[in-house]
């Protein structure tokens, strides 16, 4: 994608979300509708030009594809342009990228992007198999590797190469749960201790239950519109300063250096260039903490820590609210929850709330630049979005 073109500025003028959890009483389409309705009300809009749905697993887990038309119709938008976008766990932010392209490229003015996932209609091992579709079916999943196992291979190697112990990762989880306690949309609103982290049930060693984000349902939505339309509306404007997708091999074994997430580095560098800022200017970072190891690797490849130094930011408290680079400020994937295709939109909704100064007890002081990073698979699709809060 060319970076040298001048496109019109795009703002996020509405945000909406439903609480992440096990919504046995609500269907996929109903969850999506609730999030869209909340975002449309928040944005105060009366027209929509296009709807983009981010979702990974509706075909496998809900026997339902064709979500663009399905959700548009159910939300009372019959007739509108609507399609689903899929990039594994990065589906939400990938859909946002498509919405951004539409508005920035002047093909649409008002676009709604909704991430939705319904993961609790199936039983555990079917959901585990479905999630493994983010990996290589012929050479990873067929060997019995779950998605957790792929992350465990990364974590084991990380501990070996850099000489850390598993409990050094505890503060990623402690931070996420502490922040989720103040987020009414979070799934786990209870604190977790370092001792509980050490004792948690093993899933694929060294990854245990408290390294891992939960299986859950959720939906979140944003409304995009040209920045020129929204200046002077009274509320703090939040502009999309950068939007960048990069890719890497889907399979871990096809990477020359598995501990360096190339697509994270590529998408972050592109995003910094677009926004005209560097990691030192970023006030908060909603990263893709599906597993604690991914937090460390993302912090490193995004330029917040040197190689092998990501986990130190957790050990030394730099990632806490009030620290050098607060992460997972509303609970992150670990404690807000990780309804996979919805996650990328939850992250952006949370960054918008921070930049508007609406994050309540978890408000990051003087937040001006916020970054969100959504990762598909073990780093194969990475979408970095930088938002700027304005007057």
């Amino acid at each position, binding site marked *: 994608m060319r970076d040298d073109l001048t496109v019109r500025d795009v703002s996020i003028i509405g945000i909406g979300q439903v609480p992440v959890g096990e919504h046995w009483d609500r269907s996929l389409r109903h969850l999506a509708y609730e999030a869209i309705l909340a975002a449309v009300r928040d944005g105060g809009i009366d027209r929509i030009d296009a709807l983009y749905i981010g979702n990974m697993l509706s075909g496998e887990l809900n026997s339902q594809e064709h979500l663009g038309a399905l959700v548009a119709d159910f939300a009372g938008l019959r007739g509108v342009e609507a399609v689903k976008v899929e990039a594994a766990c990065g589906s939400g932010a990938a859909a946002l990228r498509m919405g951004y392209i539409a508005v920035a490229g002047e093909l649409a003015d008002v676009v709604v992007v909704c991430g939705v996932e319904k993961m609790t209609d199936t039983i*555990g*091992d*079917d959901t*585990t*198999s479905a999630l*493994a579709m983010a990996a290589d079916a*012929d*050479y*990873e*999943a*067929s*060997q*019995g*590797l*779950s998605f*957790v*196992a792929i992350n*465990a*291979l*990364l974590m*084991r*190697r990380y501990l*070996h190469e850099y000489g850390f112990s598993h409990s050094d990762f505890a503060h990623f989880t402690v931070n996420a749960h502490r922040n989720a306690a103040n987020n009414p949309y979070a799934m786990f609103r209870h604190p977790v201790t370092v001792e509980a982290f050490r004792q948690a*049930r*093993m*899933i*694929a*060693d*060294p*990854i245990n239950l408290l390294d891992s984000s939960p299986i859950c349902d959720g939906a979140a939505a944003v409304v995009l519109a040209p920045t020129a339309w929204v200046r002077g509306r009274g509320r703090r404007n939040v502009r999309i300063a950068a939007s960048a997708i990069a890719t890497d091999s889907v*399979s*871990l*074994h*096809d*990477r020359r250096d*598995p501990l360096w997430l190339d697509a994270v580095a590529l998408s972050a560098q592109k995003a910094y260039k677009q926004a005209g800022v560097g990691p030192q200017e970023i006030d908060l970072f909603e990263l893709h903490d599906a597993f604690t190891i991914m937090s460390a690797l993302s912090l490193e490849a995004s330029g917040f820590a040197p190689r092998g130094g990501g986990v130190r930011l957790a050990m030394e408290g730099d990632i806490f609210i009030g620290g050098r680079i607060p992460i997972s400020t509303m609970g992150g994937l670990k404690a807000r929850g990780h309804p996979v295709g919805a996650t990328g939109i939850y992250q952006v909704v949370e960054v918008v709330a921070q930049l508007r100064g609406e994050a309540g007890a978890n408000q990051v002081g003087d937040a001006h630049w916020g970054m969100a990073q959504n990762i598909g698979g073990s780093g194969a699709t990475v979408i970095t979005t930088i938002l700027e809060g304005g007057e």
Partner: protein
Amino acid sequence: MRIAQNWRLKAQRYSLVGEVCGECGAKIFPPRDVCPECAKPAREPYVFSGRGEVYSYTTLYDAPAGFQQFVPYTVALVKLEEGPLIAAQLTDVDPEEVHIGMPVEMTARRLSVEGDEGLIQYGYKFRKRFWHS
């Protein structure tokens, strides 16, 4: 039950057939149509020795559908002696004994079972190597 999808992979699953790049000589597994080192077309088959060492490993206690009967089982990234990494299960080994750098070799085993009427998949797994050759 995906018969053709599995049948297509028989040379890789049973004999570790990859490719060697005619331009730069890189050994490639799994096979692909473009050499990852030099981006030239890669088409010449190459049979890997099956020898390598453990690059990383994990033991699974929660398994995907089709693999529960094997729990707990150990999977690894194996660094093949020709260069590439491969993801595979380890077999005939005590999980406590596995370590990074452990020499391993390819063997063939049952990979997964799709219930009473589905496919039984066979393919490579790796076991501890007892001698260096």
